[in-house]
């Protein structure tokens, strides 16, 4: 079987367009390290296209195989064990595979959840802090830790340069829009929401 055909099948599997033949072909070659590397590259490419961040080194399949290998050893070493024990062993294998898959899924999701939580946490202080505290305002403006870090370095160089100007710039921007005849309510509300901070 040629490598191109295999990659084509792999691509089809990724796009959810593989027929049974192709699926079998890919599955039977799934121990191939090169194929795995290709798969992981495809995933990264797709994630970039969809703008989804993802941890490329997280190879769930490898983790599952490792779990299977670990679990399989005790079962194989006790070949004399009769029916009931065998099935328990199988159950254990299945369970650990499930855990590995679930853990993988959780990792993906947590990433997303954590980032939204971060964003919310960054925004929340601005709700309760009074307007006068401009450093707190700037912290509220940022949505990510990295940006906050930058804001801090900014205040080291020239204390509060951005703090003094950004609220006014934002207001000016919102008001320039609000001065239009046709859509006034939305830009006005936008401007007003900056005042109530």
């Amino acid at each position, binding site marked *: 079987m040629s490598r191109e055909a295999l990659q084509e099948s792999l691509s089809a599997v990724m796009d959810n367009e593989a027929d049974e033949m192709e699926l079998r072909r890919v599955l039977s070659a799934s121990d191939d390290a090169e194929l795995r590397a290709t798969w992981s590259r495809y995933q990264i490419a797709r994630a970039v296209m969809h703008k989804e961040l993802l941890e490329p080194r997280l190879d769930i399949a490898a983790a599952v195989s490792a779990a299977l290998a670990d679990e399989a050893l005790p079962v194989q070493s006790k070949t004399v064990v009769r029916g009931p024990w065998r099935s328990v062993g199988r159950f254990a294998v299945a369970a650990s595979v499930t855990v590995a898959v679930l853990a993988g899924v959780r990792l993906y999701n947590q990433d997303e959840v954590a980032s939204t939580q971060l964003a919310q946490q960054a925004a929340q202080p601005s709700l309760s802090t009074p307007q006068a505290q401009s450093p707190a305002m700037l912290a509220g403006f940022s949505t990510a830790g990295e940006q906050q870090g930058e804001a801090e370095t900014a205040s080291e160089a020239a204390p509060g340069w951005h703090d003094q100007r950004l609220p006014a710039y*934002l207001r000016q921007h919102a008001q320039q829009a609000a001065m*239009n005849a*046709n859509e006034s309510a*939305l830009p006005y509300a*936008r401007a007003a*929401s900056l005042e109530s901070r």
Partner: protein
Amino acid sequence: MRFIPVICLLFGSWLALPAVAAEAQDWLERLADAGQSQSFQGIFVYERNGSFSTHRIWHRVDETGLVRERLMQLDGVEQEVLRVDGSTECVSGTLADQLGDQQAWSAHDLDSQRLLESYDLRIIGESRVAGRAAVVLALSPRDQHRYGVELHLDQESALPLKSLLLNDKGQLLERFQFTQLDVGTLPTDQELQSGTGCQPVTASKAAAEVVEAWRSDWLPPGFILSRVAERRSPASNEQVASLVYFDGLARFSVFVEPLRGVMVEDARSQIGPTAAVSRRLATADGDVMVTVVGEIPLGTAERVALSMRAIEGQAIQ
């Protein structure tokens, strides 16, 4: 005999496509017209990340076509704007300090033709907002340099009952929504009377020289310069040039402030739907800080900030 319905379907959908597009465009034109021809009053909410507020609006169009409009925040600080025929009469509190000139806009707002170059317009269904039947329009951006908008227009008056701003992942950035709307009832003189906190707006000088002083090497497609102004800096005596760019729906402002040797780092932030990016720029007259503020993705704002240039020999005063 089986192919006949298929052909009918194909032909039908081919015929229907331009008709649907025309209908959506028709709604957009009605929307642009709605505020100029109808009186209404109502209550709406505004929500973005970290902020939720309620507002009241009175909008009156009299027999001569003169539009008077009063907007008032109902919760928290009392904030008010009174506008007569498109120009701002008075503004309350801190809203006032940055309001400037009433110079004419070069670009008409909500330009439906220009808007269609950058957005794909579709009717996606019907809905009910503030107890009124609405038609739902989707304005999906044709590139990654702007956000999408979901507009719910009143079936009867074409006034916007609800407007949602969505990013490329479909996450809600901002919500504007009427909870109650009364179309056709004329607001009384008393209702259109501004409160005592509403301060008259004074005009500042127009600044034609700003146009010749700054240009952008790169702009997101569809955005054109819609106005320029020059104002005193909020924190010093420097004059700050401001340029507003507009794509028919979204808008961003570029502020250029001289640094006079002060050491300031670049900065980046996101406030609800609004991105703000500050970048230092070296010019013949010393460094300036370029700040881009607007309802555009952060990456686009960053690229605009990087692309601003001083035009030689016309450096800012």
